[in-house]
């Protein structure tokens, strides 16, 4: 790929200074090469591995797929998914998208069902600490790239962030029509009646749309898309988000995207509008009433509590409450 193996060669010699290739700013550009912020980091990645694990050919292939995915919001772009050093179902698609996007200056956050401290999140975070030497964080607002399994952080994302979703089944129509040739044709013809029949059958059977996660959305009035198994509670956050949203499905070899400020509508009916759901109780730990809650079983006698699934959100709210309580005591 590179024309020059030794970076120290990259100073303009007497031969190059009058070259027609070097435009006026060519000299400055070459001078810039030596002061690269990522230089010392790249030398520290584990021996024998390329930056961010994947080889450059693979990353280029994934990058081209990501750009096409962004250009066609909601369309599932095929890509040649590689075997990763983790089993399918553990985020191989998300990891490949993240690897293709990471730069040495990034700060990475990885969550699994909202938690920073579960096995999947910890192992992926450590994977990129080793192979890309990027900084990692648990604080949502400090991250530039967030890889997530099945949640969107409670804290609103910003324009400077990319969120990468791990996707098990990217095809929203797959459980209705198992043949890829057919679902591809259905997307091409914008033939989504089957999905509405499914939602209607929910209503006729349960009295309401009973789909609670992986709730299908319409992206920019064109493609019906699976938002990955996030709870439907998170669906409103997909629409008009300032952050770029990328979706990677490793086993199914698909990448898709929702660009920033894109209209995303959860499918529904006029008389049965989409309802993101809510809880009768607040978080048992931090008292938040507007976050997504997980049910935690506390004993064998039916004891249970509901707590925030976003551990960063919950623990920092509690820390703030503790700090406020301490300062009040101090004043008394």
């Amino acid at each position: 790929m590179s024309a020059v193996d030794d970076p120290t060669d990259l100073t303009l010699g007497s031969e190059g200074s009058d070259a027609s290739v070097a435009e006026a700013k060519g000299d400055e550009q070459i001078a810039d090469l030596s002061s690269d912020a990522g230089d010392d980091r790249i030398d520290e990645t584990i021996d024998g591995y390329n930056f961010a694990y994947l080889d450059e050919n693979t990353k280029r292939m994934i990058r081209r797929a990501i750009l096409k995915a962004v250009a066609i919001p909601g369309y599932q772009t095929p890509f040649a998914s590689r075997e990763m050093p983790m089993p399918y179902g553990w985020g191989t698609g998300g990891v490949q998208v993240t690897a293709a996007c990471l730069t040495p200056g990034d700060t990475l956050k990885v969550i699994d069902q909202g938690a920073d401290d579960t096995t999947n999140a910890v192992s992926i975070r450590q994977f990129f600490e080793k192979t890309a030497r990027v900084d990692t964080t648990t604080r949502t607002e400090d991250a530039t790239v967030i890889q997530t399994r099945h949640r969107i952080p409670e804290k609103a994302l910003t324009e400077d962030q990319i969120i990468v979703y791990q996707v098990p089944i990217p095809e929203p129509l797959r459980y209705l029509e198992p043949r890829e040739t057919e679902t591809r044709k259905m997307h091409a013809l914008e033939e989504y009646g089957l999905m509405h029949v499914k939602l209607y059958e929910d209503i006729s059977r349960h009295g309401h749309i009973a789909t609670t996660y992986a709730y299908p959305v319409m992206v920019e009035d064109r493609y019906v898309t699976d938002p990955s198994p996030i709870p439907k509670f998170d669906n409103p956050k997909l629409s008009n988000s300032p952050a770029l949203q990328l979706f990677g499905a490793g086993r199914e070899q698909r990448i898709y995207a929702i660009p920033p400020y894109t209209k995303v509508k959860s499918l529904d009916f006029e008389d049965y509008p989409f309802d993101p759901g809510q809880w009768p109780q607040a978080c048992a730990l931090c008292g938040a009433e507007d976050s997504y809650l997980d049910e935690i079983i506390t004993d064998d006698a039916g004891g249970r509590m509901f707590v925030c699934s976003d551990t960063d959100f919950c623990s920092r709210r509690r820390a703030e409450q503790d700090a406020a309580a301490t300062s009040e005591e101090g004043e008394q």
Partner: protein
Amino acid sequence: MAIATRQPNDPPHGQIGFSKPSVDAAASFRTILNAVARPGSPQTVAAKTLAAAPLSLAATTALLTLADADAPVWLTPDVRSDATDHLIRFCVGAAPVSHSGQAAFVCGRFGAIEALELPAGSPDYPDRSATLIIETDGFAAEPDALALKLSGPGVDGVALLHVAGFGSAFARFLQQNAAQFPLGVDLLLTHGDQVVGLPRSTKVEVG
């Protein structure tokens, strides 16, 4: 086309290409990704290579970052030179294609691209389409620049983009392209170290 042999007065082709392919390509890709995700907002590529004249630094960087043996490049005749030959054949390693319809990336001035037959994808696979890297005369808000109002995915409300060097034919091209959605080609406009993304999803009005 025979592979050109180096002459004593040739430009320093050895300085075209990334010195640290992995991290340079990563940084360049993020710039291009930002450009495509936020149509109409000029992004600045970091200088990680020498520009392959007559191509701009941004166009050179985009080809180095995205093209390879699996993604053929077609240059319009007006931007072909020894330097671009070196860029495509040696640095990028892209397979030579004799027809623009076979290329993943078509790069040059709009005047030469306008009339080309370009892959726009199929209804089943709209992603199998060309990406155009079009050299412009800049994005400054000058009176004679073409002013475009952009809306659609990636744009918060309406974005205003000025493109110097193009007339209304370019705006018509963009409108026809957007009207084919989800088919169509995707554009990267380049000038100097700046790149602007105009994916097919962007709706264009002359402002």
